[in-house]
């Protein structure tokens, strides 16, 4: 290869730089600590299991907002048969009333900024 003695090492350096986000944490041993979230005091269960909610709450909310606004369907029947009023402000945030401690903790850590609360008011109280 013409200029091979510069190109091959150059390629290796490039690959190293481009994969930096993937290997740095493993090598430097900085553990990703799952944020400890304060749970609501009164309710024991969310609408679905915590594992499911952690993975799917974005999908659920996306589906919910279309169901309420566009289809007028305001009652959600969970997999355990319990019925809930579909509302971020009045159902979800009633239990998870402390946005900073509950919602923002994971979102900030994962560099996610959902803009739900630009419109949906967060409860003023702490829990």
């Amino acid at each position, binding site marked *: 290869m013409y200029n091979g003695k510069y190109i091959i090492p150059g390629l290796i350096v490039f690959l190293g730089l481009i994969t930096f986000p993937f290997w740095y944490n493993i090598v430097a041993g900085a553990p990703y600590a799952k944020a400890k979230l304060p749970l609501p005091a009164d309710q024991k269960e969310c609408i679905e299991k915590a594992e499911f909610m952690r993975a799917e709450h974005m999908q659920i909310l996306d589906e919910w907002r279309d169901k309420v606004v566009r289809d007028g369907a305001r009652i959600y029947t969970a997999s355990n048969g319990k019925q809930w009023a579909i509302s971020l402000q009045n159902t979800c945030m009633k239990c998870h009333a402390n946005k900073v401690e509950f919602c923002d903790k994971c979102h900030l850590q994962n560099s996610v900024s959902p803009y739900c609360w*630009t419109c949906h008011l967060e409860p003023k109280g702490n829990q």
Partner: protein
Amino acid sequence: MNNCRRKFLKIAGLSALGLGVKPALDLLTVPDAHALMPPDAYKPDAKGLKAKHWGMVIDTSKFDKPEKFEKVIQACHNTHNVPEIPGKQEVKWLWTDEFKATFPDNEQHYIPDKVESRKFLLLCNHCENPACVRVCPTKATFKREDGIVMMDMHRCIGCRFCMAACPYGARSFNFGEPRPYLKYENPEYPTRMRGVVEKCTFCTERLALGKMPYCAEASGGAILFGDLNDAKSEVRKALKENFTIRRKVALGTSPSVYYII
């Protein structure tokens, strides 16, 4: 060599297209193909009021004092977190104006004093043939089965085509963030953010819980709200007993808000 590469790229491109056919067809034909929950997990609230065609009759003579207007407008604007923005970029769902601005195509030369001095309530007319719904490129504003012209704030791209189309000036755009202009935040209803259009929605969130719209409730009977399709409803009774007019009827939008003069 060149020819081989071209051939390879052509075949690769066609294969990619071919592989995409089934997923695309699935998305288009299978309803809720990527929905998370089964469709029967969702249903409307049993308490909800149902109608074939929601409509409103406003008895304008009953609004004889400014406080009566204040009451209904505050009831609507406060609960729905409608900002109070001074100037020409204002947002309003329900407001008042004089006869010739409310009914400009009904220019009356010798108008009785009692009508000339009267103020009228203006709001979205929830037309049967709404121009705003016709023009919305994303169906962010859409007509429900019960006749209400609804707003989907999640989908609105803020193109303001609906504002150009509405012949009644019923729609407001959030030119900036509305929250600084809210005197009081109702924690049970969202606000809006900059860049979306808003208007009266005939209080769908109240109807869903079996209650009347805020303005109708606060009007003490001056605003009647009901099913125009139901011959026995309050609104139909009022229409049978009183001569009413609607705004700009010649345009063919067929408003659902009737005014008893």
